[in-house]
Structures are given as C-alpha cells and as structure tokens.
C-alpha cells in the first residue's frame, strides 16, 4: 500500500481502534517512578500505543521509534503528557483519554528505554557527512533538508525518529547497511516494483500509490510513471528495498560509524 492508501488506512485503523476525544493536559502530580511503575507503563504502552509504535516502542511503519530519547514533538515530560493526551494535529497520532496515572507510567517507561550510548557510535559526524554527500553516494537517493535525491526516504530528521536498534531490538542498524533486506521488514512504500509493459519494457521503482486498477510509480529514473494495470503485462512486487547493499569492503567499520554519527545528528530543520 502506498503513502496515500496507507495513510488513510492507518488513519482509519487508528480511528477504528483509538478515537477518544481530547482531554486537557492535566497537571496532575507525577507519581514516583519505581520499577513497578515502569513495568506497568510498558503494559499500558503496549495496550494503547503498541499497535502503531510497536509493543516495545521500537517503531513500526506507521509510527516512529520512541526509544531514541529524542522526540520530534516533545522535550520535557510535560510535553510528552500533552502529546499523549492531545495527539499531534496533522498526523495520525490521536488524542488519548487515559487516566493521568497511566500516562505518567507510560512516560516513565519511555524514558526508561533510552540507553545512553545508543546514538553514540564513536564515529566522526563530519567525516560521515562527507561520506554521505560524496563517495558513499547516499545523497543520490536520500534528501536531507531539501538537498539530495528523491527515490529513498527523506532523512532530515532520522536522528530524532530512529535509533540504531530500530524496530527489532536484536538487530543493529549497522547490520542493515550490509543486508538492507535481510534484517528489516521493508515498508511497502519503500519496496520495489517492476512494471512490464505490453511492449516488454521494464520500469523499476518505488510505488507511490496503487490500487486494484492502477499504479503510480517513482522510477529509478526519478520520473513518475502512471499506468492502468490493464495496459501492463505484469506488475512484480518485491519486498525488498532499492537501497544497495554496502559490503564491508565498500563501507568499512570506521566509515560506517562515521555515517551513523552523521545520521544520528540529523534532527530536522537547518544543519
């Protein structure tokens, strides 16, 4: 499913499951944090937030990883309280009508997930930046703050929305560079589709939208290709990313750490 289709589907799924009305952020006193609070917070989180953010808050293709210690829409715990109760306008994050005690427990849990050195790779972020925009050719496909390619996801705020342990805590993002398809489930919006025209022409790219009758593809030629399916010989879906595999020969360990340090520094806005 594509961004539009997926967005509405997710929106509807969200609406289907969680659509309580907004509650004013209640400045209720925060209860003391204990291991029990954190455990209960984890359970409340899984019940109320897990469907989008993942049961352990490692993110899903609907909502970001919340283990980073950095939140796009919140800095303080009070900000988090407000975001949880009011939702985030313009996104699928809904308002949540939960008792304050549960919200504070969820916040305690989220804070507890942050491991201090998760983003500290030991790499040199300036070197990583050079690699990103130069020999690594990352910017051929990825955009950061308005510059770069269009085929891959925009990475302007990747440091605020992902951790190195994104999604599956047993896997490291570093592994993902070497085997981008082996360890991570590729969201359909980043998957690969090849269209075969009736004349036998092959067009490969990422699907921007699709339904039973038509497909809208951003090709590896960076052009948009719109087709009715009845005019195509075949539509081949592959659950793999167009992200190339970087072998250790191409991206040695120290360079990888530099690159990760650069990515971790990207928090949106100007750089």
């Amino acid at each position, binding site marked *: *499913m594509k961004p539009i289709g997926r967005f*509405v589907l997710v929106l509807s799924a969200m609406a289907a*499951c969680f659509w309580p*009305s*907004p509650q004013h952020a209640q400045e209720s006193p925060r209860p003391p944090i204990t291991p029990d609070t954190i455990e209960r917070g984890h359970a409340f989180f*899984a019940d*109320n937030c*897990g469907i989008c953010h993942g*049961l352990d808050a490692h993110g899903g293709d609907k909502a970001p990883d919340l283990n980073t210690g950095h939140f796009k829409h919140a800095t303080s715990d009070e900000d988090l309280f407000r975001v949880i109760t009011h939702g985030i306008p313009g996104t699928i994050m809904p308002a949540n009508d939960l008792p304050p005690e549960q919200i504070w427990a969820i916040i305690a849990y989220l804070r507890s997930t942050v491991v201090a050195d998760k983003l500290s790779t030991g790499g040199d972020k300036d070197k990583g930046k050079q690699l990103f925009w130069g020999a690594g050719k990352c910017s051929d496909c990825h955009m950061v703050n308005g510059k770069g390619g269009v085929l891959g996801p925009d990475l302007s705020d990747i440091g605020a929305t992902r951790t190195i342990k994104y999604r599956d805590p047993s896997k490291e993002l570093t592994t993902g560079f070497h085997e981008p398809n082996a360890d991570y489930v590729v969201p359909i919006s980043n998957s690969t589709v090849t269209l075969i025209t009736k004349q036998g022409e092959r067009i490969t790219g990422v699907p921007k939208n*699709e339904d039973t009758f038509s497909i809208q593809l951003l090709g590896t030629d960076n052009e948009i290709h719109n087709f009715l399916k009845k005019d195509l010989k075949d539509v081949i879906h592959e659950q793999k990313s167009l992200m190339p595999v970087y072998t250790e020969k191409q991206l040695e360990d120290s360079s990888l750490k530099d690159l990760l340090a650069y990515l971790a520094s990207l928090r949106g806005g100007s750089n």
Partner: protein
Amino acid sequence: MTRRRTAVLLSLILQCGMLAVWPLLASADGRNWVTYAGTEAGWHYSKLDQINTQNVDHLVLKWVFQIGDLGKFEATPLERDGVMYGTGQNNRAFALDARTGKAIWRYAPSNLPADLRLCCGTVNRGFAIQGTRLFMATLDAHVIAMDTRTGNVLWNTKAADYKLGYSFTLAPLIVKDKVIVGVSGGEYPIRGFIDAYYIDTGKRAWRFETIPAPGEPRHESWSGDSWKIGGAPAWMTGAYDPELNLIYWPTGNPAPSNYGGQRKGDNLYSNSMLAMNPDTGRLKWFFQFTPHDLWDHDATETPVLIDGMWHGKRRKLLLQANRNAFFYVLDRETGQFLSAKPFAEQNWASEITAQGRPVFNPASIPTKKSIRVCPGALGAVNWNPPSYSPATRLFYVNARENDCTIFTGGPETPTKGQFFFGSSFSPPYNEQGWGVLRAIDPASGDVKWGFKMYSVAWAGVLSTSGDLVFTGDMEGNLMAFNGNTGENLWHFQTGSPVFAAPMSYEFEGKQYIVIAAGSGLFAFGLPDAN
C-alpha cells in the same frame, strides 16, 4: 423490468436445486429504499434493473453531496418518493432532493459531548423512517426522533450513560409501533442491551440485557462478577420476519475482548444470534457462534433471512457470514444449526461440531506469550454488510484475507469508561492483508467466485436484480461486478476510502446507485438521453 423478473421467477421454479428461494421478504416497492438493508430481511438488495450488466459501464456521476464533517462516513442513506434522508459523522443528518443532491435541511447536534467513549470513530450508519418521523441512535447513547420535513427533534430519549462506555452507531430498525436499537461499547466494561422505544413518545417499551443477571437463565455462563462488565453489545441492525413475528439481533464480543481468564464460561449471550418477539423483547431462541471468545470475534454481522429448500425440506433460514470466518446457516424458526463452512482463512478453530460449537485450536489462545491468530481482531469480515440476491441466489461478502493479529493477553483491571481489552494486539509486521469479494452459494457454503482487491475492504455490498454487485475499496473505488461471474464491469475513483454499504433507488423513472465516501455522498446513474 417485468420481463426480467418473470424470467427470474421462472428460473426459480424450474431450478429445483437444493436451495430455491422465494423473494417473499423483499420490500413491496423496489423504487424506494426505506430500511438500512433495503429490506427487513437484511438483504442489501434492490429489485431495480434499469442499470444492469449491459449498461453499467456507462454509469456517470449525477451529483455529490458534502456532509461537511471529517471521519469515517459509514452511513447508508434512505430514499422515499424523491427525498433522501441520511446521517453521518458526529450524528450529522440531512434530507436531500434525491434528483439533485440539494439539501432540504441539515442537522448537526449542538450538545454532543466532547468526551464520548467510542471505539471506532464518530460514525453513524443511518436512519430508520416511518411516516413523518426519522429515528437516529446517537454517539452519546440517546435515541432521537426527527421530523422528515424539517429535521426538528420530536423527542430525545437517553438510553444509557455514555461516560460508562455506551454509545450507538447503528441504524435503528422499526417494527410496528417500536424503534429498536442495540448498544455499542464492547471495548469498555459495559453490560450490553437491546432496547425498543415507542415511536410516538420515545418511551422505552422494553430492554433485553444481553447478559443474564443472577437468577436468570444462563447467568452461570459467567464466572464471578464478570457478568456486570461482560460487554456483549449489539451494535448492528437486526432483521425482522413479519410472518414469524421475530426479530433477529446479533451480539458482539464479551469484555475484555482478548482475555478469558476473568470471565470463565460460555459468556452468553455474547457473539450470538438472538431471536426475539419484537412486541415484548422476549427471547425465543439463541445460537452462540463463538462461545468464550478470545479474539474480538463479534457476531454482529447482518443476519440475512431467506426461505428455501434445505436438503429436500422447505425451511425458513438465517444466513450469516461471521467475523470468525465461518458462513453459517441456521433454521430461523428454531435456531437449529444447519451448517458452517469457512469463507476465509482461519486458524482459531480446529472444527465446528455437528451442534455448531467450535473447538478451539489450543495454539490460538492468547497468553502472555504473543500468538498470531487469523482472522485477527478485525475479523474475516467486520460490520460492513453483505448482500443476498434472489436473482443469482448468491450471498456476497467482502472477506478479509491474511488480516491476522498478534495477541498478548493477560488479566486487566477494568476501569469504568476506559478501554478494556485484556490484551495488547498488533498486526504482524511483515504481513499485508487483502480483500476478496466472494460470492457464496448458501446451499453448499461453496465460494462460486472471488474478486481479489489490493487491500482489505471496509465497504458493504449491494446486489441488484440487474445481476450486478456493487462494493467499494480502501483505495477509493466504487466497483460494479457481474453477480454471476465476478467480472469487474465498472469502477469509479471517489477520492476517499469507502466505509459504507451502497444503496439504490428509482425516482422519475431513473435508477440511482449511491455510496458514501470521504465526506461525500456520490449518486450515479445512466446518462440522460439527449
């Protein structure tokens, strides 16, 4: 139309197959659409055939009405003598000129609370109509009557306290002098009910609590005090058989939906079909599809009433494509179980016994260890209504495939007015579900054809005597199919996911097909002759 209808009747008489069907229960006049399902028998079927398999690809958009609200537009409007009456998001309502889509009046409640307890959006599925009165059941658990000419509120009766988790989303059903509604709220610690109100006064005529209190029969199907908060809502419109004077009302999940340790027993009358006397609310029989449900498999899907030959004997039947993935046939006079056959992939039941009782697959029982169950929490079909066509003698349903859920269940302390699931649940990361519009032969339960869609569909189905089947998808298409073959004959991009069941009516000799999508109500017809 006459010739076609004669041909249909003739074929019914000639084809003495296992299941012959008499279209006795269809509404008398095929031009209007005056109940949620078009008929009291739950068919979602139109007798009109001006639009048919030969010309459906010429359909054009006639008008669009914008309701002016966001959220899911799940309603099916009514039409009577050139005026359309509809509801929508946040209990908005309207009357339209059915030729032009121009509003005659609009209604928006001024007093809808901000802290509603809803599971699934600010939805409403439609009006019921009788004489100059319209009836709507509201998100804050009231039932209101309105004047058809002005939208003025005639009476407004509170059925329950919304703060405890009660709400209404369904279109009411009118039987004689009463308007009948069932409550939503199975996601909260509530005790479900079905209510009847006098249409003249709004006074409550009877209430049937879907969970028996101590001393009442089958109370023992709940352990401890779990009956007090055991859910069993009744959130979709039932059907009515005037000959038997019975209403058939389906019920939803026990609460908490995904953990059974706190409510040992069969949890009656959750996930059941209830046959009741509409005058008194007295239960005649019940059949429970999923006893002690652990997967949110509400049985609230539309009951479809047909009369036919069943293994050589003429019987009054009730069909239901259940959220639990089985297609059921019951005898609607007695409640006797006749058959159940899966219409979608499932792994929760290892078999259905000869008495109709499922045997749970032990690997599908939610525990603290996460397990994957199909169909998942959203079911093999959800509330979106199926359709039955006496012309093709097929039952059409939008099945959900590969739409599974990871459940992680455990005890949960209920809090009044707060969600009560007993489990966390999430879709499997690496799986993508899809929808299949399926045509089922009720006699055998066999699937005659299927049309695979790009994703799971939430739209209801309409069939017509033009041998057409209409439904919508999440990518915004309204689609028409040949009801006999499943061939896709036409589609139109509405620009928004379709969450409603289509309807059809005829006015001034022209047939219309209407569907709600996004914030709009779209009406289609054949091009005017120049």
